[in-house]
């Protein structure tokens, strides 16, 4: 393989590491350690042209602190802004939590493959989420609700450690009241209060109780690894095939562009080939998920 290069060749390529500027329009406190940030690009053109798929992610920059990847929690059907729900975990997320409305941040993306929305048309969709894992599902759920006729029944099973840890509390009510959407909320044993009307138990247990049928259905799940592990056991018991199970993987990601090597599992780069995979694909990986 030889290559013939010309000296001082053509135009320098676009700088893929350069973020766009966006202003924080609104901050909502979801829980004690999770906030949702509504962001609007400074550049008016970009505000209109920025499109994405549910399940894709962006790189969020605070200059001087660093850059971290977060899933887009908003739906592309809601134009003009994007939203990210961010849990305070480390240095960058702490700095993001310290931001105020009106502050300017850097955003680049969208990256990743996103959920196969078109393949979901005409199917029953079962969402299984735990904790902050509802964020990427929320993007898809609003997308589905906004294009309600394209999809069949929607079942959502969502749980967290305690009532206080449930995110998007106002929206959960709206989903509950949407025709064709069945929402089941649960909290881990001990996380309930006296007036709690939802379920008490771990997500996989409650999923089994809800007992969705695998016929013409797809499951989309996201949550802590331990939850995913047992959700898979439950789904297997209910005869869902691994092709019917879709998840979005968490990994250490740095560049978001398939270069830096951080999110590599086998020959797959989670940031570029994923982060959305079917369980059938995951079974082929040569490393543990």
């Amino acid at each position: 393989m030889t290559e013939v290069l010309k000296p001082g060749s053509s135009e320098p390529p676009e700088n893929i590491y350069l973020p766009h500027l966006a202003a924080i329009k609104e901050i909502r406190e979801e829980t004690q350690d999770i906030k949702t940030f509504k962001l609007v690009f400074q550049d008016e053109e970009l505000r209109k042209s920025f499109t994405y798929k549910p399940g894709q992610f962006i790189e969020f920059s605070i200059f001087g602190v660093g850059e971290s990847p977060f899933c887009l929690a908003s739906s592309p059907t809601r134009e003009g802004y994007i939203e990210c729900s961010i849990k305070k975990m480390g240095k960058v997320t702490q700095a993001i939590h310290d931001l105020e409305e009106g502050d300017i941040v850097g955003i680049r993306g969208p990256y990743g493959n996103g959920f196969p929305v078109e393949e979901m048309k005409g199917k029953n969709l079962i969402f299984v989420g735990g904790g902050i894992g509802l964020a990427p599902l929320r993007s898809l759920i609003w997308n589905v609700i906004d294009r309600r006729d394209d999809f069949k029944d929607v079942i959502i099973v969502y749980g967290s450690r305690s009532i206080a840890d449930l995110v998007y509390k106002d929206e959960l009510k709206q989903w509950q009241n949407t025709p064709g959407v069945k929402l089941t909320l649960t909290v881990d044993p001990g996380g309930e209060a006296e007036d709690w009307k939802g379920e008490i138990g771990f997500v996989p247990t409650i999923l089994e109780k809800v007992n969705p049928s695998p016929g013409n259905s797809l499951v989309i799940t996201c949550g802590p690894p331990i939850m995913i592990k047992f959700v898979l056991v439950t789904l297997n018991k209910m005869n869902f095939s691994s092709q019917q199970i879709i998840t979005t993987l968490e990994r250490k990601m740095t560049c978001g562009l398939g270069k830096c090597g951080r999110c590599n599992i086998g020959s797959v780069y989670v940031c570029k080939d994923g982060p959305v995979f079917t369980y059938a694909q995951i079974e082929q990986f040569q490393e543990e998920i």
Partner: protein
Amino acid sequence: MERYVKISKKDFYKWVDSLKKHGKVYAPKRKENTHVFRPIKDSSELDLNYISTILPPKKYYFPQKESLLKFSIKPFETAKAIQKFEEFVLFGVHTCDLAGIQCMDVVFREDPLDPNYINRKDRMTTVGIECLKPCDKHASCVSMGNHVPRGGYDIMLTEIKGSYIIHLNSQKGEDILQGHSYIKKCTQADRNLLDSLRKNKERVFKEEFIGQLTEVYTVFSKLSESGVWDDVGKRCVGCGNCTTVCPTCYCFDVKDELDLNLNDGLRYRWWNSCQMDDFARVAGGEDFRPGRVSRQRHRYYRKFKYPIDKFNRYFCTGCGRCSRTCMAKINLTETVNDLIKEHRNVSIGI
């Protein structure tokens, strides 16, 4: 210009001194009892009689620390950090390191193009030099097929009988050869000498692996669980030397650095290593590749399995640096051969 030309050793150093006008010249230079790629002022500093340098020349087209952006917090703005890249000549690169350059090219030219890499690489003129004898017990270039030139250079030098035969591979190569009357056409006799030199190399250079590369690939496909990995992992001290010196390791981290005024700063990328224990750990504490066994296995799989699936290319060049530098004496050839042996034993039911 002809595809093959030659230069006598007498004129060679004159020509090396002329390269300055094509940019800074980086070349192998003696450092204590080994060699390093360094900028050279003139040909007297050049030492082509070397086995592989401590670091591969990747430091020039993928620097250890490289600024990506500069920023200021107030007024808030971002700008491209690097507007200027300089032309340079990378001189005297062995064929194993040329293979390393080709691997990096595949990675950084894959969509989306990496602007920093491309800007540097496009300004680089590469002069290769062919090894005439095997270097040491650590290299595995013959098994990797990199003991002979296989592209990745602008010109290639092969020393034969008081001259260097030069293979021209690009316009850039032509540029650094033009205008020197002492660079002569190659005769048929010269070409015949080159052919017989290559034939002779076949006898002198022996394959280091006990099996062919196709077998190596099969072995890696089958043996992700093996006592060999446990052994390698137990010996590894997690220093990351192996990845630092590897010509095809390119994993990086990105970090911001603020000036003392706490307003202006630079965003850098730095070499990172999959051997560091925080490499795959996320802020929540979850480590997606815990333990030295899985981290060492990962390093090997990134040479002999994953890039073949992804790019159809082995990412081991056979340079031997990882084995040469390993404090725990983990030897790549031994690891690969142990795996092949284990796989053969399993296949026949031992």
